[in-house]
């Protein structure tokens, strides 16, 4: 199997907690050759950990076959451009690609670009997707519930992340009003991830009916086709986590449960409750992050464009939600 050289441009907590773990578990496919970050101290320490060379921010090592872009969101589209200009065959960008859907749409046109939405790539979700879409057509309700602890707590539980003094990745993310950092993080992280799941299941064009934010979370109602989609998010104050995508209809109830974000080694699980009983499935030893990297490996070698991720549409919908365009506060 061809081993691809990886350049890392942006050592965010997701890079350190999730991507390096995924890359480390796929040594037959990848080796990290360069590390860059806006904070030189962080870049140096992560480079030392990985045994890779340290590069200036946005500078991709010559010979990098693929690049991970994970810096502050406003800089990501530019970093993607530079990575391709530098010769990368494929680029994996952390989500969101941009706060601006027009920028995201323009950038998504790049051949070989994959936006990392770990749940969308989760092998359990993908394996169940065809049946999920069938059930969605006759569902009476789709419900998405996301209660996660703040990212810093999760990262701290996974790895010893090198702290940075540079601006956070989500600094400046649009919100309808001043919001606690956890709420901004919740919207531009898990909610965006969940919007991608809804689109994956129901197709494009979900309509925003209303959205509300409360102290520690949000409540969003969409209509996807004829199916109401009720989404609730909450920044949990404890280690207790719940992340579930449910389809309910006469005679069936499908529940897809996702692991807490960033955790390596835990895939989603799918449970179907029906007259035939309950059937549970769970891919073993695979995660959305590993699956995304495997897909990137295919894309880089085949030269084929990745499946359209269309995250631009999700970003546009999220902007309507966080800015209260319709029915919000």
């Amino acid at each position, binding site marked *: 199997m061809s081993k691809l050289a990886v350049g890392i441009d942006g050592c965010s907590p997701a890079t350190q907690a999730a991507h390096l773990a995924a890359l480390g578990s796929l040594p037959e496919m990848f080796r990290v050759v360069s590390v860059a970050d806006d904070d030189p101290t962080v870049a140096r320490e992560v480079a030392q950990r990985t045994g890779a060379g340290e590069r200036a921010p946005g500078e991709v090592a010559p010979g990098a076959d693929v690049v991970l872009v994970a810096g502050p969101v406003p800089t990501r589209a530019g970093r993607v451009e530079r990575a391709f200009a530098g010769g990368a065959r494929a680029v994996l960008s952390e989500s969101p690609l941009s706060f601006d859907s027009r920028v995201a749409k323009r950038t998504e046109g790049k051949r070989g670009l994959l936006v990392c939405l770990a749940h969308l790539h989760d092998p359990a979700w993908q394996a169940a997707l065809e049946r999920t879409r069938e059930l969605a057509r006759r569902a009476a*309700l789709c419900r998405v519930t996301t209660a996660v602890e703040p990212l810093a707590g999760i990262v701290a539980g996974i790895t010893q992340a090198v702290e940075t003094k540079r601006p956070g990745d989500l600094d400046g993310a649009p919100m309808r009003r001043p919001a606690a950092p956890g709420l901004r993080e919740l919207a531009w992280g898990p909610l965006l991830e969940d919007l991608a799941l809804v689109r994956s299941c129901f197709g494009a064009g979900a309509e925003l*009916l*209303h959205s*509300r934010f*409360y102290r520690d979370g949000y409540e969003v109602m969409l209509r996807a086709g004829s199916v*109401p989609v009720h989404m609730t998010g909450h920044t949990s104050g*404890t*280690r*207790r986590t719940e992340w579930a995508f449910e389809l309910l209809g*006469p005679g069936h109830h499908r529940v897809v449960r996702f692991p807490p974000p960033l955790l390596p080694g835990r895939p989603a699980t799918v449970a179907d409750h029906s007259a035939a009983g309950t059937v549970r499935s769970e891919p073993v030893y695979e995660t959305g992050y590993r699956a995304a990297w495997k897909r990137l490996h295919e894309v880089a070698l085949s030269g084929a464009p990745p499946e359209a991720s269309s995250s631009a549409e999700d970003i546009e919908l999220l902007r309507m939600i966080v800015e209260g365009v319709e029915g919000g506060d």
Partner: protein
Amino acid sequence: MISSAGVHGRLGVGVIGCGQAAQAIHLPALASLQELFRPAVFYDPVAPLAETVARRASGRPAASVEELLADPAVDVVLLCSPNDLHPDHAVAAIDAGKKGVLCEKPLASSAEGAQRVAAASRRRGVPVIVGTMHRHDPALHALASQWGDLPERASWIRACAHLSPNPVMVSFATEPVPPTPLPEPAGGGPSLAGAAMLRGLMLGLAIHQVPLVRMAMPAFDAVEVAIAPGLMYQVSLRQGERLAQLTAVVYEFVRNDWSFELWGPGASARFDYGASYLQAQSSTGELWQDGNGLAARRAFTSAHENGYRQEWRHLAAVVRGEEEPLTGAADAAEDIAFCERIAAAAGAGWGEAP
């Protein structure tokens, strides 16, 4: 009037309404509490049903509510009659000098009706216990004793009712006597839609969870409601920066999830209601607390007890003056008024903002 067994012996129970709730819920509970109660007299407008159920329970049928209430063998009254009749029957039992009433939920189909019962209960000093059984569940009490001020601090309150239809649960719980259908009203039954449908769902199902929701969020500034054909509703209440959700889905093959949750800073709690009608299933509570860098999760169970038995035990203790009533008709009236305020905001269907 108190029977000779009366206060210090077994309490004679008069049962008004001999349908599924009486057969599947209360008679099994009473059968397991023979040291406290003795089912005595049964009334149902369908006389053969009352006769059959009375025979099973070694009691006697009565030809009318008045006859039942006049029987000195009846110390306390169980009301399993239609909701609309609960207030009249409860007040009649109180006025007949009975020592206590256990009324199936809801206490009335309107707050006004419940207030009438509350006034009678207060006037005569007769306790009225409403059969929202989980409120009496030992697991809930154990959980609540440990959650401190979490109900006030929680920013997200979630009450979920994903349940199988009642006939499925009843069939698990007992072998019910097939009901004899009452004659249809002229022109057929009412067709419920919108607010009327939601009102029925609130009083029929959500009423179980409203006491806990109301404890955490006594009032709300805004409400959004969506309902769908079948037993499905989604209610969102907001009070300042807090959110409370009540959801229901009733399908035959739904994964049962009847729960109440509080999510707050530093702690969260979940109470899983035992399935309705089933005597053997205990409720469970869980409490997550973070502190000193540690995340702790504690679980509470009812062991071999359940809310149905406990509400009967509680009634006996209150009648004997051993306990103060945990709740009363006035609380139930507040619960119903809470439901009525929600129902008034009913939308036209799923996803329709009112």
